[in-house]
């Protein structure tokens, strides 16, 4: 091993945390450019209707207004986009454009854009727009949408069904007919949304003199947007620069194409001046993608010993008026039906998926796409089976989890697992939480009328995705990443990489990985991300890939530069490069560890005195490397979570007492940041389990679209979260790291639902709808 491993595996604080704490963040929201105008949108107040009249004359004459656009004046410069992919055979969605054309399809649908010298003036002018909509009956419920005779969600579709598919193993029917026990359930998972600290923000700046479009965009996927803007507006992609500086939270919500961002770019191209849009909180609620919104009916077949034989699942997911572009709104449901039963040696399976349109905001990818639904349904049925067979929840899992030495393993849904560690995780969890003691305490407290519950949920997480996710379906979504690593003339290191930073610490772990390849400390490695002009093209941040794919890219780029440095050093020192290594900022003798020449000296010679190098010696101190995952289509991770709750059966209020996570993300690059990812993920899993829900009335109006009414989880409600690890590196890469960003979210809600139901068990009550609000718990108890 040539590289030292001094920094990989160590806790390093997030490099940008100090800057953010010092108030020196650079968010798109903070950006002000000369001659910049501000955009505000007139939105449909109706969930569905025909635009009868749209008169912008008064708005155009309002103080400070620079320009008013309607569909007629703005849409022609942008090619419409359609959120379908080929590998979801038969899926349908209507083409979309920036402003509503003739028909409004959800409450919040942008109808007109006003540009003014300030956002306040633009908003004032919005009030002067005369918009007359003849309202039509909105389709607000997915089941109702599929009933014959229900009106279509939009004129652009022939059916309210976006997509339907079935996965089925040949032995399914037989498994159920031979089963000793069958448990079943019907589940409802509410809509919720990301509520990022910084709302969606974009400043587009088109320079007509050069044809250069620069878009400052609070996104996690700048290269994807470079491609989208180039294609939709007919620009060469090297004339499109997307810069994503500090991003105040993203979570999957900021990688979709939105009407407003496209409209801002279109307006800048038309006006030849910078245009800014930053969503306010009210419009975020009615224009950011929402998540989940599933109704699932499922049953599980067991033999007499409690061995899982099969699952049969039907998921109906409600996605709003359009499938999102370019990743579609089908990916969520697709992962729901493919992740069911994933931790278990379940041989047979049937999963049916119906993806349905309605007149609401789109739903689409959000942290842990599909995972929380698949996990909650599977784990709830496992607990019901345990109850029916009178088995302890830990025991039934121990009987069914895929054995740690049984890999590689292929799930009933076709996922290939390289190596997972479910049993080791279960054993560690049991010990960490003091399971037996908690059960004794639970029994004792029940006698005093205190109802505590313990819930457990095993999970599998999809990470390090290759092109199988989107690319094979025709999406221009990159599954590879690239890095440029260079040694500066003074012997410091710079790394420009395509994975991006939204506060999770990507730049910090990249610096650790690169540092170890070049024998320097992470603070000597400056990492640049998020700018399509200065970093190589890549996938950036989606589906858990920063550490696993970005880290491997950085490692390989670092090793390439290491070889270049050693070649130059060998030439200078007249030594075989193989006898040299890098450590502590210098080239050392591999055998003795003695310093031979510093990196600063190498930098100086190669930069200022290349004439002193021998003939033919390459003085390059820049290395470029791209990396695309090969081997398994995904590197799955695994883990297990437990939740301890107390339910007040008089008020229905649940107190979260404690949460445990045992997680195996392969090689851990930075334990501090891995734990931070898990904790944040758990909170984003508990939020929708207890608090977060986008509520709609029967006219398709969202009725709690403000932070006064929409509940986000606060620190005070959150339990302590204890975390432990198992490390099973993937052998697909040198680094061996897998993803961890979605592990917390994947199973937190499932563990919590099992815990609440465990608490309610003495009353014979059961809840299978999230969020588990006090009212729903009281309803389950029969109190209301």
């Amino acid at each position: 091993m040539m590289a030292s491993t001094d920094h990989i595996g160590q806790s390093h604080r997030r490099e940008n945390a100090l800057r953010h704490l010092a108030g020196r963040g650079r968010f798109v929201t903070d950006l002000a450019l000369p001659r910049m105008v501000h955009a505000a949108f007139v939105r449909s107040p109706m969930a569905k209707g025909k635009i009868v009249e749209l008169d912008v004359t008064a708005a155009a004459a309002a103080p400070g207004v620079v320009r008013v656009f309607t569909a007629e004046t703005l849409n022609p410069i942008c090619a419409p986009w359609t959120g379908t992919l080929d590998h979801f055979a038969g899926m349908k969605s209507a083409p979309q454009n920036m402003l509503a054309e003739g028909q409004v399809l959800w409450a919040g649908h942008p109808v007109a854009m006003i540009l003014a010298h300030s956002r306040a003036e633009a908003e004032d002018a919005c009030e002067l727009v005369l918009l007359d909509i003849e309202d039509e009956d909105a389709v607000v419920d997915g089941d109702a949408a599929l009933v014959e005779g229900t009106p279509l969600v939009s004129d652009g579709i022939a059916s309210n069904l976006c997509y339907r598919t079935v996965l089925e193993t040949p032995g399914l029917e037989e498994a159920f007919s031979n089963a000793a026990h069958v448990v079943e359930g019907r589940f409802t998972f509410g809509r919720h949304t990301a509520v990022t600290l910084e709302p969606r923000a974009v400043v587009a700046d088109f320079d007509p003199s050069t044809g250069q479009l620069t878009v400052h965009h609070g996104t996690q996927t700048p290269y994807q947007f470079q491609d989208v803007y180039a294609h939709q507006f007919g620009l060469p992609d090297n004339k499109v620069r997307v810069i994503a500086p500090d991003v105040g939270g993203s979570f999957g919500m900021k990688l979709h194409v939105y009407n407003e961002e496209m409209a801002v770019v279109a307006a800048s191209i038309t006006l030849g001046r910078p245009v800014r849009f930053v969503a306010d909180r009210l419009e975020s609620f009615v224009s950011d993608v929402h998540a989940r919104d599933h109704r699932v009916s499922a049953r599980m077949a067991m033999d007499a010993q409690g061995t899982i034989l099969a699952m049969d699942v039907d998921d109906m997911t409600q996605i709003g008026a359009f499938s999102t572009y370019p990743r579609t709104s089908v990916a969520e449901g697709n992962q729901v039906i493919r992740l069911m039963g994933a931790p278990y040696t379940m041989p047979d399976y049937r999963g049916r998926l119906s993806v349905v349109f309605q007149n609401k905001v789109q739903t689409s990818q959000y942290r842990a796409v599909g995972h929380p639904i698949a996990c909650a349904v599977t784990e709830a049925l496992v607990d019901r089976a345990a109850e029916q067979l009178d088995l302890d929840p830990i025991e039934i899992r121990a009987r069914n989890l895929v054995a740690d030495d049984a890999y590689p393993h292929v799930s009933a849904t076709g996922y290939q697992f390289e190596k997972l560690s479910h049993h080791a995780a279960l054993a560690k969890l049991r010990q960490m939480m003091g399971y037996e003691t908690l059960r004794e305490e639970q029994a004792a407290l029940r006698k005093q009328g205190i109802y505590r519950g313990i819930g457990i949920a095993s999970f599998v997480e999809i990470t390090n995705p290759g092109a199988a996710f989107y690319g094979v379906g025709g999406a221009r979504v990159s599954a590879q990443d690239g890095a440029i690593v260079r040694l500066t003339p003074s012997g410091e290191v710079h790394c420009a990489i395509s994975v991006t930073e939204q506060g999770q610490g990507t730049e910090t772990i990249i610096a650790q990985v690169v540092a170890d390849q070049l024998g320097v400390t992470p603070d000597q490695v400056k990492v640049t991300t998020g700018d399509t002009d200065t970093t190589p093209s890549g996938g950036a941040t989606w589906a858990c890939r920063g550490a696993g794919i970005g880290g491997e890219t950085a490692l390989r780029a670092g090793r390439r530069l290491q070889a270049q440095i050693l070649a130059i050093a060998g030439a200078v020192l007249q030594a075989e490069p193989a006898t040299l290594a890098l450590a502590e900022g210098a080239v050392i003798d591999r055998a003795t560890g003695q310093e031979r020449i510093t990196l600063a000296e190498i930098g100086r010679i190669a930069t200022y005195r290349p004439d002193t190098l021998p003939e033919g010696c390459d003085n390059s101190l820049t290395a470029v490397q791209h990396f695309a995952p090969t081997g398994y289509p995904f590197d799955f991770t695994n883990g297990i979570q437990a939740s301890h709750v107390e339910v007040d059966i008089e008020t229905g209020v649940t107190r979260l007492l404690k949460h445990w996570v045992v997680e195996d993300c392969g090689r851990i690059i930075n334990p501090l940041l891995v734990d931070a990812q898990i904790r944040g993920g758990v909170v984003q899993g508990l939020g929708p389990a207890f608090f977060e829900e986008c509520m709609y009335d029967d006219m398709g109006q969202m009725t709690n679209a403000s932070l006064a009414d929409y509940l986000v989880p606060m620190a005070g409600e959150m339990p302590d979260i204890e975390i432990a690890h198992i490390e099973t590196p993937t052998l697909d890469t040198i680094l061996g790291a897998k993803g961890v960003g979605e592990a917390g979210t994947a199973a937190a809600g499932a563990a919590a639902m099992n815990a609440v139901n465990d608490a309610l068990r003495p009353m014979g009550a059961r809840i299978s709808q999230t969020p588990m609000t006090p009212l729903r718990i009281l309803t389950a108890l029969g109190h209301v």
Partner: protein
Amino acid sequence: MELKGSQTLAATPDQVWSALFDRAILEQAIPGCESLEQTSDTSFSAVVKLKIGPVSARFKGDVELSDIAPGLSCTLSGKGSGGIAGFAKGAARVTLTPQGAQTVLDYTADVAVGGKLAALGNRLIKATAQKLTGEFFANFDTALTCEETAPAA
């Protein structure tokens, strides 16, 4: 959203009834009313400025009276558009019952709101609607009393 209430007014049902169709009285009584025009025997068109929580808007709308049983009951239905603030539409059934020299006015209204108004939550809107209704009847009562004491035109 359902609103229900009852108001005792210091006038006879006939006086109340004619006041309900009296443009001038309604204009005084409707909170934030900027203009009110009678467009037919049974319809009005109004511009009303309202502030509901953080949303302030000028609503333009039409109100239609139907199912009229003179002196006893009628249904008011209407729709108002507040531009970007959203819209409100609904219907109210009003019945008058004499009680000595006074009149009890009962109303049941079914109101739906959309756009920003809906987004802000029914909680806020219901409280505001109740407050506005209270103001309306207070103003209406005052207008009725004034009319009684004022000399005949």
